[in-house]
Each structure stands twice: as C-alpha cells, then as structure tokens.
C-alpha cells in the first residue's frame, strides 16, 4: 500500500513538473523570434537592428540568415547599428549571433557599429577572433567506390603482411627463449599462467558440464526410439573429447583471456609503456607477447582435458539421475568409445586454439590506436578474430581428419 501511495506522489510530482514547464513555455513565448528583431531603414545607407526580449540559449533567437536576406535585398547598406530595448536579456547565444554577424559584415564590407549594445557585450566583442580560424585539414576517407574497393584490397594485403610480421617476431622471440637469451620476467609469466589457467576453471566447469548435459538430453530423445539409450555414453564421450570440449573452452577463453590480452597491451600502447620498452632495447614481442602466448599454449590443452572430463560428468549425471541408465555400464561404454586418438585430437585442437587466441589478442593490442575508443575496438576485434579463426580451424582439422581417416 505504502508503495502505491509513494508512486502516486511520484506521478503527481511529475505532472506538476510538466505543467510548470508548459506554463513557462507559454510565458517565454511572449515574443516570437521575428518580434525580437526588427529592421529599421529610416537612416540612409544604414540598417538599424532593434533588439528586444529574451535572447538567451533557453529562449531561442532569430537566425543570422534573416539579417543576411535583408542585407541582400538592400545592397546599398554600408553600416549596421543596434538599438536594444529595456527588456533585452542575453547570454552567449547572443554573442554567437553577433560573432556570425560580424563575419558576414566583414565579408560584405559593412561597418558594424556596436555602440548601441550593452556595455558588457561591447567588451566581449574584441574576444572574437579577427580572422576565421584556419581549418586544419584531416585526412578524410571519402573515396569513390572503385577507389575504396581498391584500397580495401590493398588493406587486406597490408594486414596479411603485418600479421605475418607479427608471427615472425614471436617465432624469433621464441627462438631466443629456447636459447635462454630472451628477456622476460618469470614472475609475470606465472601470474599470466594463473590468470588464464586456474582462474578460468570455474567458468569452464560450469559451461562444459551444461554442454555435456545438453548432449545427453538430445541424444536420449533420438536413441530412445531404438531402445539404445546406453549409446548416449558414446555420443557424449566422443563429442566432448574430440571437439566440443576444445571448442567450448576456446570460445570461453577468447572472450575471457583474449580480450584481456588485447585490452592490457592496448592500454600499455596508449600509455607509451611500449615505447619505453622499445627505447630500452627490450623487444615487446619478447617481454609482453611471448609470455602470454606461452602461457595460453600451455594452459589451453590442459583446460581442454579438464573440459572433456566435466562434459562427460555432465552427461553421466543426466543419464544416471534423469534417464535412469546403469552407471557401470555407462562408464564401460565411455571407456571403450573414447579412443586415445580422440584424446590426441582434442589436445591438438586445444593447442591450436591457444595459439590463435593469444596471437589475436596480442596482435590487436599491439596495433591498438592510442585512445580509449581504440582500446575498446582492439578488444572487440580480438574476440571476433579469435572466435572466427577457431571455427575455421575446427573445420580445417575436421576435414583433414576425414581425409586421413582418424
């Protein structure tokens, strides 16, 4: 009850507000813009502007173009002066009107006589820059269609080169790492390892258990028709271990770790931290990119195995708890169905996805523009690149396996 009364009050308040606004609108509307500005041609070759009423931002004011049309129809005008009434109110809106007017007058060689204006306005007038400021031209990308197609094609080529360059840097850094000459801090490496491994376990568990359950349910509907429900164990086991575990982990880690790599490196880029490394002769590929790539390449296969297991547990739980299958039989079916080759395949997926996620995150971060919008863009495109590449890589691996018969 209390709540209703309070919301009634709220409504009433709102209505009063709207009503007041409406009334003030009416009182403000006492003069229309055209009444605020009257043109007086009583003197020869001179135009006097009679200004009255409210010329503030909130009230609205006449357009300079009205004066301009007057000037155009009276070509002999050589002087412009002002008379203001007692009810005249102004703020910077009026100054901006004058600002534009003074430009127009300068162009048309008309003398602007400010004496009739209030004293304070007169004092503000000299602040208006004498010449219009130079517009410094930015590079604008308004190209004709064909040209823009052309530059896009060239852009793709450039992008491909820069990705290859980046990969090359990583490989070189890895070589130096193997030779023990790379400069990176072990502490940093372990922190990253923890962040993209242990810290991700909760999320990975949740999602893959659910995926295992979903697979079991879907399988059950079909297999029930043949009375072959126990084969759910085979479906869940093979699907999880062969690709689903790796793909789900990959997608999760793209959003989690790939994005954070891109954001971290992007912010370092805009803070000049990466410049500071370069002038010190430390290669960012060694110091920043390599530990991230290594950490994810180590963690992704491990996370994949963990995800496989979680998925199988999810399927098991549904099959035993809901569908009423025999646990021992389920276990045996799973063990015989999942071959070592499937496990290897899952690990390969995990390994490849690890490289993809880390490289796209770091690449986008390092190529980030030096602004906060740039960091946002880098993060988004890191995730998009990673997920797209993961799907493409899965398709390729599946296709190759089909051919070689794994």
């Amino acid at each position, binding site marked *: 009850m209390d709540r209703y009364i309070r919301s009634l009050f709220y409504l009433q308040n709102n209505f009063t507000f709207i009503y007041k606004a409406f009334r003030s609108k009416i009182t403000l509307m006492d003069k229309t813009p055209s009444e605020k500005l009257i043109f007086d041609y009583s003197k020869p070759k001179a135009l006097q502007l009679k200004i009255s009423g409210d010329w503030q931002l909130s009230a609205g004011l006449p357009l300079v173009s009205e004066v301009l049309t007057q000037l155009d129809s009276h070509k002999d005008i050589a002087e412009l002066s002002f008379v203001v009434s007692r009810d005249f109110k102004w703020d910077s809106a009026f100054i901006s009107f004058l600002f534009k007017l003074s430009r127009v007058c300068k162009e048309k060689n008309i003398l602007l006589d400010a004496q009739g204006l209030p004293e304070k306005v007169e004092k503000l007038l000299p602040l208006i820059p004498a010449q219009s400021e130079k517009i410094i031209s930015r590079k604008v990308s308004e190209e004709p269609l064909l040209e823009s197609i052309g530059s896009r094609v060239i852009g793709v080529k450039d992008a491909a080169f820069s990705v290859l360059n980046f990969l090359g840097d990583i490989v070189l850094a890895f070589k130096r790492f193997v030779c023990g000459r790379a400069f990176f801090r072990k502490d940093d490496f372990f922190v990253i390892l923890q962040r993209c491994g242990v810290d991700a376990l909760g999320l990975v568990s949740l999602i893959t258990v659910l995926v295992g359950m979903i697979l079991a349910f879907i399988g059950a509907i079909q297999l029930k028709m043949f009375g072959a429900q126990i084969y759910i164990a085979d479906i869940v086991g093979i699907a999880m271990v062969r690709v689903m575990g790796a793909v789900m982990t990959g997608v999760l880690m793209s959003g989690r770790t790939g994005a954070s790599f891109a954001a971290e490196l992007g912010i370092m880029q805009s*803070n*000049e931290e990466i*410049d*500071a490394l370069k*002038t*010190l*002769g430390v290669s960012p590929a060694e110091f920043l990119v390599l530990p991230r790539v290594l950490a994810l390449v180590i963690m992704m296969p491990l996370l994949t195995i963990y995800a496989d297991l979680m998925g199988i547990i999810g399927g098991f739980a549904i099959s035993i708890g809901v569908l009423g299958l025999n646990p021992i039989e389920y276990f045996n079916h799973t063990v015989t169905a999942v071959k070592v080759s499937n496990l290897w395949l899952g690990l390969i997926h995990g390994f490849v996805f690890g490289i993809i996620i880390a490289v796209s995150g770091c690449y986008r971060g390092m190529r980030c523009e030096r602004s906060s919008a740039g960091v946002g863009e880098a993060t988004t495109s890191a995730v998009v690149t990673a997920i797209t590449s993961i799907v493409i890589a899965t398709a390729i691996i599946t296709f190759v396996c089909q051919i070689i018969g794994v």
Partner: protein
Amino acid sequence: MDAVIEVKDLDLAYDDFVVMNGINFSVKKGEIFIVMGGSGCGKSTLLKAMIGLNPPHKGKVLYNGLSFWDEDERSRQDIMCRFGVLYQGGALWSSLTLRENVALPLQLYSNLSASQIQDMAAFKLGLVGLGGYADFYPAELSGGMKKRAGLARAIALDPEFIFFDEPSAGLDPLSAKMLDDLILDLRDNLGATIVVVTHELASIFAVGDNAILLDADTKTVIAQGAPKDLLANSKDPRVISFLTRGEKQGAGR
C-alpha cells in the same frame, strides 16, 4: 666543444599530415638544450624521431657523428642503450612496482648483483623524493609522482643523453624547482647531455643553455640561441611574446 647530437634538415610527418619542416640544430656535449613551442606544434613528435621511435619523414639525426636512422637495427640499439627518456605521461610499466620499474634497465644493462640493483633503485627513487614509495604500483600514484618515478627510471643507467618531455608539467612549484636543480646536477655531476621539451618559462631560463622555438603556423624553427639572449636580442615578435607570456608583444607590433 663538439656537437654530440646533430639534427639536419629533419621533416616530421604522420602519413600525409606534415608536422614540421627543415629542423636544424646541434647540441654540444654537457649542454642542456631546450625545445620550446606551443601546444601541439610537434615537440613530442620531434623527440620521438630523436629517440628512435618514429622514423622522420626526411633528414638525419646524428649522435657523435653516427647517423641514427641510417644505421642497422643493431647499432641503433647500441645508441639507444645510452638514452634515458622521461615520457610526457611517465609511461611507467603498470605491472611492475616502482622499484622494479627502476631496476629493469639495471637488470638489462648493468653487471651489478641483485642486491646492488635493489640499492641502486632505492637510491634513484630517493633522488626524486619517492624513496618511501618503492613498493607502490604506478596506478597508486598521482600524476606528478608518476612523472618523478619516470624520471628515476630515465636516469637509472646514468645515461649519456637524457630526453625529457615536459618534465615539470603537473608538478607543484617546489617540485618543479627541485626538478630543475636535479637536471643541473645530472649535467654537472654525470656529464649528461640533456634535451628538455618544455614551455615552463621559469625552467627555460633556469636551466637552458641553448634553445629552439618551434612554430606551428610556419612549421619551422623560428628562433635559436640561449634563452636569455633570445629574450634580450630577438627582433621577432613571436619569440618575445612566447618568452614573456605575451606580456611584451615585441618590437614588431
């Protein structure tokens, strides 16, 4: 004394956007050289070309007679090891504490033991008045403190050439004065050659041996010489009004 840094016919640009044309100057050994100019005229861009971050559009930068941008990657690296740079925003490595920030260059290029490196780092932080903050991360500092920590890192290796990008911007008057004294100390006691980008008039007159003034409109160097001479003898109204904060408009106007 010989010029140790020479900048010859340098043109600066970002793609098609020209920032500066035909910059020429030289810095003698042990000199404090000031680069002045209005905001956005290209001071930081010039500095980036000098420290090897952005290649110039055209022209040369010579260190002890070696043309920096014409050398191969390796000898460029050798020259860069002798730089200390204070960036406009500090540019501290955000994942490291102040102590680790200052220690990193030492780990890379010195032969000191780990404990000596720690001592060195503590000493350099003490020099800029941040001795108590060694275990803080950059995110936990104010803007001015970041600047000072960046300075401690820049001088970690007792570099031969030190570059400062607006060192006193964002500092209170006392810290700014302390910084000026520190710059003089670095030059007098370590024999460093120092290039300072600044528009802080007090510092310009306090520390500058020589200076150039960049101008955004003409995209060139419009004055060159010792700041005090420039103020006393320049006939160019733009120079006079820059050096007097516009209070004297100069002879020309």
